């Protein structure tokens, strides 16, 4: 009895999202499939939706949402985006052209243990749920756990810190599974890692003030994407490299993907609009997703049109 616009305008639990993913696959069997890329520390499956029109291995775009579990707007936006991709294929000429030559992989809940924990114990939990030997504090920041600049600026060696980098690079199942998948695929042309709430679109680097070799192109594309985003609801975004735009941060997703050769490596910080932080009311899910979509499309179209 629930219309889909209503469904997308609420926050959902992990079980609800996973069930909905099965529904999406069933509705669009020729376009969408669900693959498991690993399991979390607490043995939950790490699911990725694959949007593909081809049998061969196309160039691919990777998108993940919700690696920081308390940023609920990102998982909710991930659900909306998955639906958008599935329902716009064959209607939206640009997306159709994209899916006719590229695959999109979307991991809606990149940190399922943390996400389940935000629903059951602590709404403001950010990290993974792995036990840290010798410490009472639980969890690792999965966006400081990647194998680039590991342990450097903006990452903490204190297991009780929100930015604890973990005992070694890729100590967390959740990050290792993504890294293995991207490396194993071998043809990922763009990575977009979606967070919230500072309203910025950023590219490498985070761990060093050195400019990325492709800085000019990445910056121009970020500008275009942000303009497309702002045109929808007037939401103001900044853009630039992570190091100068917000803060130095070592061991983050997009620095690793960039350094292994994924040129179009971007990270979004979606809304807040200055009032709610991680506690964005559900009424803002659809506007947030709606404005994110054209920005995502700009990046995906650019990756499609500029093979390297």
């Amino acid at each position, binding site marked *: *009895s*629930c219309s889909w616009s*209503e*469904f997308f305008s*609420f*926050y*959902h639990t992990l079980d609800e999202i996973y069930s909905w993913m099965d529904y999406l696959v069933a509705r669009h069997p020729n376009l969408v499939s669900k693959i498991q890329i690993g399991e979390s520390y607490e043995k939950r499956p790490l699911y990725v939706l694959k949007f593909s029109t081809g049998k061969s291995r196309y160039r691919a775009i990777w998108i993940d949402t919700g690696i920081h579990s308390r940023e609920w707007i990102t998982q909710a936006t991930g659900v909306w985006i998955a639906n958008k991709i599935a329902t716009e294929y064959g209607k939206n000429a640009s997306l159709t052209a994209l899916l006719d030559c590229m695959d999109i992989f979307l991991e809606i809940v990149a940190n399922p243990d943390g996400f389940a924990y935000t629903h*059951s*114990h*602590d*709404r*403001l939990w950010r990290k993974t749920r792995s036990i840290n030997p010798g410490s009472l504090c639980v969890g690792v920041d999965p966006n400081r756990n990647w194998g680039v600049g590991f342990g450097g600026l*903006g990452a903490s060696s204190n297991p*009780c810190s*929100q*930015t604890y980098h973990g005992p070694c690079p890729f100590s967390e199942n959740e990050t290792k599974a993504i890294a293995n998948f991207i490396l194993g695929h071998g043809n990922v042309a763009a990575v977009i890692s979606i967070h919230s*709430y*500072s309203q910025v679109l950023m590219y490498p680097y985070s761990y060093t003030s050195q400019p990325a070799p492709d800085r000019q192109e990445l910056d121009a594309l970020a500008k275009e994407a942000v303009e497309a985003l702002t045109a929808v609801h007037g939401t103001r975004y900044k853009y630039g490299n992570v190091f100068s735009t*917000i*803060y*130095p*941060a070592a061991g983050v997703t997009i620095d690793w993907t960039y350094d292994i050769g994924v040129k179009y490596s971007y990270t979004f910080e979606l809304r807040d609009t*200055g*009032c*709610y*932080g*991680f*506690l964005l*009311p*559900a009424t803002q899910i659809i506007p947030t997703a709606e404005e994110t979509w054209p920005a995502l499309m700009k990046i995906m179209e650019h990756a499609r049109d500029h093979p390297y």
Partner: protein
Amino acid sequence: QKRFVGDQVLRVLTDKEEHIALLRELEESEDLQLDYWDVPSKLGLPLDVRVPSQSLQLVKTFLESNSIPYTTMIEDVQKLLDEEKRAMRRARKLKR
């Protein structure tokens, strides 16, 4: 489930390097159990900090005595969470 009754989120405005250093110092005080929603690093960027109710007075006094400007972004975290829960319950009814 963990409750956040009376916890506030303060938006701290850093316009001097020494403010950033002080905020880092404050972050180290584990007794206060502060939850920094961003990293204190750049001048001019607002910094949001969730302050548990029992630490509010101390933190506000610290900020004021060091002339660090702030506003209260969220008056009561639990109120927002209660509203969020109500919305999810409404969603479940609709789904059924």
